[in-house]
């Protein structure tokens, strides 16, 4: 994942990536199963192009989450279409996502108290 149009220090860039990408993917497959390109596209769209996910970094992460049992992938075939691999959130993934959200909320609340940053 990359932060587009931002001169972010590299360390912060890595920290933000590490802490947030997992949560972003889990959150996007929370409502319904999605395939990899859809996930990447949604991240870019919903962040107004600030966040971008390319295939080379997205799929290793998807496979890692699948290996950890947080998401589950399955091939779906539809008439006159190439089959696609969709990922859905597992029960363990739901727990982790809940934990991620709580942590990030606390983090932003702390930032807000100190520096007056309102994530909303």
């Amino acid at each position, binding site marked *: 994942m990359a932060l587009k149009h931002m001169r972010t220090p590299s360390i912060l860039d890595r920290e933000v990536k590490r802490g947030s990408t997992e949560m972003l993917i889990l959150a996007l497959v929370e409502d319904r199963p999605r395939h*990899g*390109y859809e996930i*990447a*596209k949604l991240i870019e769209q919903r962040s107004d192009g600030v966040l971008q996910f*390319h*295939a*080379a*970094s*997205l*799929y*290793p*992460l998807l*496979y*890692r989450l699948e*290996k950890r049992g947080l998401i589950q992938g399955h091939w779906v075939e539809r008439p006159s279409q*190439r*089959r*696609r*691999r969709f990922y859905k959130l597992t029960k363990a993934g739901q727990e982790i996502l809940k934990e991620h959200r709580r942590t990030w909320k606390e983090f932003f609340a702390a930032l807000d108290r100190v520096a007056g940053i309102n994530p909303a």
Partner: protein
Amino acid sequence: MQDWEKEIREALSQLPLRPLREAEIVEELSQHLEDRYEDLLVQGYAEDEAVQKTLSEFRQNEMIRDLRGLEHAFSEPVELGQEPRSSLTAGLWEDLRYAFRMLLSQPGMTLVVIVTMGLGIGVNTTMFSSLEMLAFRPFDFPNQERLVTVGERQRETSFARGSVTPGDFADWQKQNQTFEELVAIKSSYFDFSNASQPERLSGNFVSAGFFTALGTHAALGRTFTAEDKKISTNQVVVLSDGLWRTRFGADPQIVGRSVKLNEEIYTIVGVMPKNFHYPVDEGQLWIPLSPDSSDRSRRDHYLRVIGLPRRGVSLTQAGEDLNRIAVSLQSEYPDTNRGREVRVVPLVKDATRGVRVAVPFMFISVLLVLLVACANIANILLVRAAARQRDIAIRLALGASRLRVMRQLFAHSLVLSGFGGFLGLLMAYFGIKAMRGMPQDFSMFIPGWTKMGIDQPALAFTLVLSVLTGILCGLIPAWLGTRVELNQVLKNDGPSILSVVQRRADIGPPEYDPKSL
């Protein structure tokens, strides 16, 4: 149209992926790149630019490094008709597990076989442990290899006396040129009066140099000095570890205390180490032998003599030296010493001569017991192998090698012998413990009796014996059990793996387990 798959395959070629897994990743990623390419075209990019941008985005990250830790290493596919590993140990663990299951499925038979093996191995281990100690390692003296016993022999009758006269001993001691130490021992009993009730103790008078010759030092206090042998000085005694513990409560301040022995006062000067037992196992004390200058009898044989030849002096040279003296004594005292010679024998050999004679007979006896046990067990295992002949035939028909099936049968007998060996070791341990507890009147005259136990050689012996027993018991069943006529056996009716498989097929298909793929 751009060949995304080729690009992805080239990138993935660095990873040892399973073919199926690689195909999945290629399919998924190529679809992603195609979607991205089409999006870029929609956004207004020219075809070439869209391709270049898609590829540059795909190449910019270290995907291979990320995937390397995630994906399982791919091993070579199993070639049908061949074992994936040809080593002899391949599948050994499965064989052992199968053997355990077989044993548990028939506990009665297993128990009978293990107990039979345990008895056979236990008797052999007991015999090995005791005889190995009694016949070859009865002592632990530092100078053991050089120590000899010296006795007298009548030339005409070849009658060998174990004991020596005081007169002859005195002359040997004075005139010999080959011994560092020549020591006389006189065993005796002592009335011990310090306790509330008088007690009789066995002990030994020993001449100067006794402890020096054996190379053993006191654990507490000292042994004898040159002064101690003078009769005019205070009489001294050295105690055995056992006496010190049982009669004096292992008192560390015991040295210097007095005890009354045979109505005379002796000063305790030392306590010997726990494992020091000589000349008899249950000797409880040692007192300096003060030769009475008036006692030069050449008729009364009551001294036992041991010697420590000087370094470099052979047994023959030591014997020749003492016989030279004996010849001069023959002419000097013809009435008593006519035809009297000296014989010098290694101490260990002399002390164990009785046991050594019995060793082969005793070992043959117990080995026969084990062989009979093995024959019975082999018979039981053969019957079992015959009952499984149909199963064996099916395995052979499916492609298992005869060696592989034989190994499984061997694993069965080896597991049995392993348990049998363990049981035998326990039996030997308690058997030897019981032997050591035999009455002292019997055991005290057998050097090494109190040392008997299960030590490293005994453990090694049991291990080897257990393996050999397992091989011996499993050999015939494995050989005969796998000599089957496949057609003949498979045509016969009877319970077998096949019938079990058939019954399972009637119940329904096995549950699908994706992990098994």
